[in-house]
């Protein structure tokens, strides 16, 4: 077992809306990532993937509030740290985050080198221009990006290059853990592949020690992640290795996600694409029982009243359903 780079125990965070309503977007989530591993988080929009990513960094600002749980990054417990302290000593150095659509948020009037300079100066204002330039150049060479890009404006870059630049800016201070939130969903397949290759090279060369990859594209996740965690309505509903989650899903929701995959491989045209009917529940007042009950094909009366714990199956595998593994597999086999 490798060194644990990030451990989260029972993390719960909530949003408080304008009308003082509580929305529990991350509900008792625990996870652990070892050195050299990539954890994939899957789930549809609004199920709490991005909120989990924000909560993991321990940097809370309204409307997001911390409730309970612990976050340990490489042996350092950051729970209860003040936001300012987190920003100065944790963000960017220990853990870095690439938000969704970050590449569209680049200031069009500044050059790429300025973004890198901003990150460095926010942590250490004493750096000179030359030092920043040397650092940025070395960083770009290390990541396999052309150094000319440093002197360009965002509009001069293609979508794929912009996204890779954003990643380079995020890892300027060589963080141990990188959280990539949908880093490639706005790109075409070729640029997407380049972004993924860059991330994977960074992992392989040990430039970053662990990665969390968030996306709703299962085929992509399967190729990037070692382990996959499926989230639904703020909770983990399934956890396992990438292979297990994709080829042998246990939770009906994971099974449903598998039904919406489109890959250009023979057999796709004859397969029927199955959508999961309905929409996720409103987290302002989540249903008391299983949160997936309303959309589940195999729903039983107890599902709606009994809150379902996450059953550990062993070897890190877990799922949240009252049916046994065998019952679920039999039900899926019956449907096919």
């Amino acid at each position, binding site marked *: 077992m490798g060194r644990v780079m990030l451990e989260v125990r029972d993390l719960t965070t909530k949003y408080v809306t304008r009308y003082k309503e509580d929305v529990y977007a991350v509900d008792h989530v625990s996870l652990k990532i070892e050195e050299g591993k990539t954890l994939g988080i899957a789930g*549809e*929009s*609004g199920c709490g993937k991005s909120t989990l990513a924000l909560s993991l960094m321990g940097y809370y600002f309204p409307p997001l509030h911390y409730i309970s749980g612990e976050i340990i990054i490489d042996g350092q417990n950051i729970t209860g740290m003040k936001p300012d302290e987190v920003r100065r000593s944790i963000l960017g150095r220990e853990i870095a985050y690439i938000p969704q659509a970050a590449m569209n948020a680049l200031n069009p009037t500044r050059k790429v080198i300025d973004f890198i300079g901003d990150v460095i100066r926010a942590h250490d204002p004493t750096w000179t221009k030359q030092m920043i330039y040397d650092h940025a150049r070395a960083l770009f060479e290390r990541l396999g990006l052309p150094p000319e890009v440093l002197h360009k404006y965002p509009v001069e870059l*293609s*979508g794929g290059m912009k996204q890779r630049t954003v990643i380079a800016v995020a890892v300027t201070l060589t963080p141990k853990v990188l959280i990539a939130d949908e880093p490639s969903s*706005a*790109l*075409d*397949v*070729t*640029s*997407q*592949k*380049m972004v*993924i*290759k860059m991330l*994977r090279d960074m992992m392989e060369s040990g430039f970053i020690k662990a990665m969390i990859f968030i996306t*709703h*594209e*299962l*085929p*992509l996740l*399967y*190729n990037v992640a070692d382990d996959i965690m499926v989230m639904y309505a703020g909770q983990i509903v399934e956890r396992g290795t990438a292979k297990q989650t*994709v080829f042998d899903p246990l939770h009906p929701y994971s099974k*449903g*996600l598998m*039904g*919406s*995959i*489109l*890959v*250009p*491989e*023979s057999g*796709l*045209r004859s397969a029927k*694409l*199955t*959508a*999961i009917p309905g*929409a996720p529940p409103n987290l302002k007042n989540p249903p008391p029982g299983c949160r997936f009950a309303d959309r589940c094909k195999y729903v039983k009366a107890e599902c709606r009243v009994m809150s379902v714990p996450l059953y550990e199956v062993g070897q890190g595998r877990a799922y949240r359903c009252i049916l046994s593994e065998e019952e679920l597999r039999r039900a899926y086999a019956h449907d096919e």
Partner: protein
Amino acid sequence: MTSKGNPCLSGRGVTKIFGFGRHKTVAVDHVDFDFHEGEIVSIVGESGSGKTTLAKMLLGLISLTEGEIYFQGKKRDLSSGKKKQEYWRNIQAIFQDPFSSYNIFHKIDAVLLDCIRMRGGGKLPREKKVELMTEACSFVNLKFAELTNKYPFELSGGQMQRLMIARIFLLKPKILVADEPTSMIDACSRATILDYLMKLRNEIGMTLIFITHDIGLAYYVSDTIYIMERGRFVESGSADDVILHPKHPYTRRLISDVPKIYEEWDLSTV
């Protein structure tokens, strides 16, 4: 693949050039095509290959630099506003970004009422209009009673895209151009949107033209696939031929770039 109907939209030497002289960009370069009635066609290419420019020309939103587009065997004529309107009764579009497809100041009712008026139902009594709108919404599994008096931004992306399909259901065009209809919404809603589009095609027998970079989607839905690279069609044919037996290196590269689950995804070929 079923037998092809009559050509309903054809192009000969369709070209679009932006800019002049040194800054000339040839976005679409002498492409020929025949889209048949009731056919589902996909135009696949990466960003910047000219597929959206081609879609805009098909829709008559921008003019052609060279070449001709034929609609139902006759040369397309968009010389006056009236003719354009007539043309748009036959060809409609769904765009990539549902969030920017709607006028944010107009309520959802207005969006649907516009469609009814365009079909010549402007003088119908209110109840009849509501009935039509309810039918259209229920076609895409939305409840009109919940939508009425709401603004588009109160809906989720998937709902907005479904409302777009409800519009098309009211308009019943002959051709629908869907420009990346699912790239901004997540994988679970994607299946729903595609299902409704297919259902709609079967219902009103229109020609569907998908513009997409998602080769998996193209393979799943279409009868015919055109692969576009730098403004030209490099390969075309039935979906099975193009995807399972690609001939052009560009097609092969596009397919190899898609993450797969049953085969190894080769990252070394970037």
